[in-house]
């Protein structure tokens, strides 16, 4: 793609294309050591991940044996009394709450990043960027308590309005039914959106800032507006890094535990409405792990953890596919 000559994108080039030292390859002991350390660090991370998956799969064997894979995935019954376990409501809840977080969080992150990179005067850039990054430093339990004690009561007051206005629309109105409790799937999604914002927006901002000013200025020179520059020049140039940032945020949303547990309402009964309580895989783990007394119960909870890893892997796989696909389309255009 970079052969088009006009726009060279941010991308990782294969090893063979990279410049090498022509002097003394691995000539210095320090270089040799550094090489080995880098290789070791990379393999260590992969090894830890691999070992974790093996350990989790091993500990969920009782439950896998008892319920199988397909039956566990599609069963909605989670009953510690009768020792019958199924994962369906948890998988749905995890995906739905993360989707809401992305739908709300990604556009806002994009706006924040464009503001910092393109619009804001220099004196305001630093404080805004700093404030956004501080959001990432707040522990998730604080988000949970904030969501439960401060956001939910305020949100509950807007829910009758949501019921009246959005709930009256045929079709999507089904998503906005239910008593004004202030907690539920939508609240969890909103809190998650705030939590993923710093991750996505700081990656977007960083890559937006390294877009060569020649590109930017050329566009402005031929009369492009800020929006056109952001959408047609900056975003395509940084596309794969932006998608990477979004999926980092999504990974955080899928695995978030404490904040979600406080505000989602923790009900295993599936509902079509986003205002009703729901449940996610991490939240049920946080809720039930400490008091899970039987082996099958513990094993089923670990099995849920295994499924969460699988969900994350599938999402990553889709992300890679998406990036490739977009790349190919862009390449065809050029």
């Amino acid at each position, binding site marked *: 793609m970079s052969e088009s000559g006009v726009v060279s994108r941010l991308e990782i080039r294969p090893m063979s294309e990279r410049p090498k030292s022509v002097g003394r390859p691995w000539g210095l002991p320090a270089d040799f050591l550094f090489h080995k350390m880098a290789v070791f660090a990379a393999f260590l991370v992969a090894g830890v991940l691999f070992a974790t998956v093996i350990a989790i799969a091993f500990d969920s064997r009782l439950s896998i044996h008892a319920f199988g894979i397909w039956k566990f995935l599609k069963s909605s019954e989670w009953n510690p009394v009768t020792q019958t376990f199924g994962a369906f409501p948890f998988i749905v809840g995890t995906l739905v709450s993360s989707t809401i977080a992305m739908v709300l969080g990604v556009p806002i992150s994009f706006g924040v990043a464009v503001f910092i990179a393109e619009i804001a005067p220099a004196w305001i850039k630093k404080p805004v960027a700093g404030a956004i990054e501080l959001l990432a430093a707040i522990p998730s339990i604080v988000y949970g308590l904030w969501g439960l004690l401060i956001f939910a009561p305020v949100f509950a007051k807007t829910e009758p309005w949501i019921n009246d206005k959005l709930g009256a629309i045929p079709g999507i109105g089904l998503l906005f039914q239910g008593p004004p409790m202030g907690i539920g799937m939508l609240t969890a999604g909103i809190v998650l959106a705030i939590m993923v914002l710093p991750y996505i927006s700081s990656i977007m901002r960083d890559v937006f800032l390294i877009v060569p000013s020649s590109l930017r200025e050329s566009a402005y020179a031929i009369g492009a507006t800020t929006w056109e520059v952001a959408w047609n020049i900056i975003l395509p140039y940084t596309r794969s890094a932006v998608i990477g940032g979004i999926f980092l945020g999504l990974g955080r949303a899928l695995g978030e535990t404490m904040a979600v547990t406080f505000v989602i309402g*923790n009900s295993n009964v599936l509902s079509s409405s986003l205002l009703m309580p729901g449940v996610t895989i991490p939240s049920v783990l*946080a809720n039930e792990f400490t008091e899970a007394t039987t082996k099958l119960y513990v094993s089923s909870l670990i099995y849920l953890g295994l499924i969460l890893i699988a969900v994350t892997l599938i999402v990553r796989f889709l992300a890679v596919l998406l990036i490739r696909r977009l790349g190919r389309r862009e390449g065809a255009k050029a």
Partner: protein
Amino acid sequence: MKSLRVTAILLALSLVGFVASAQSTLTGAGSTWVYPLVAKWAAAYQQNNGVEVNYQSIGSGGGIAQIKAGTVAFGASDMPLKPEDLSSAGLIQFPTAVAGEDLVYNLPGIQAEQLVLSGPLVADIYLGKIKKWNDPAIAKLNSGLNLPDMDITVVHRSDGSGTTFTFCDYLSKVSPEWKDKVGANTSVAWPTGVGGKGNEGVASYVQRIPGSIGYVEYAYILESHLFDARMVNRDGKIVSPSLKGFQDAAAHVDFTKAQDFYVILTDHTGPDTWPISGCTWQILRKNAPKETNMAVMKFFDWGFEHGQDMARSISFGPLPSSTVEAIKSYWKKELGYSL
């Protein structure tokens, strides 16, 4: 050089101190419910007897696992183990103190302890069969109250908890349908409602959502000034929750007849007995070293005798003396030695 020698001596001394204190440390783990009581007893016990009791509130499930693995001297569980499970794992158990829980509500115009509920009524509400506050079944018990035409929002615990076990055990005793459809455990498959994490989670939902009802520990009700209900007990009397009501529940149980104290204190007879009473069990290993078990027994014996006011100050009811006697003879019978 001199300072190095001083450091070395200090280090050696501190090691000696460490070893010495390690010998007089007692470790326990389990129930979060009983944690405030054990922590309070432990602080006073250390002052009086010099023995440090280190209790980690990791949850009943963890407590049972730890005592089975032999990593702690005692485990604590909110749910008693069945006698056959105890004997197969080589464990014994005994109760510690009694406590209770009650239903709290958020109803416009209705104050604390004005609402009266009965077990079958609560079961029907939590089964989702009674959906409105002005349902005739509720109105029948509360003829003086102006019950609103409002949806009932059921609030339950989302985390596994002894509070849930006690509550569901009670509902299973008073409602065959509950026993059949839901049952009792530290977590259950709730037919309806929203789940709050911990007593504080349930309390905050109930305080916020008009028309809601939830169950929380009695100590938490007192602390947070929640509006709690009066209940109709097994004898048909309308009672308010009180320490005496919890203790009466224990007093009406014949612990000498129950093997391994496998009795749950819900729904017992007695005119003042509070129906949703519960207690926490301590679990020991039979084949643990005698010194270890003796140290645990001494600690709890001290607590039964000297810790009564401490227990009351945090809304735990001390065990009736008949129960304490039963525990002592149980120790002798099961372990072959006594204090």
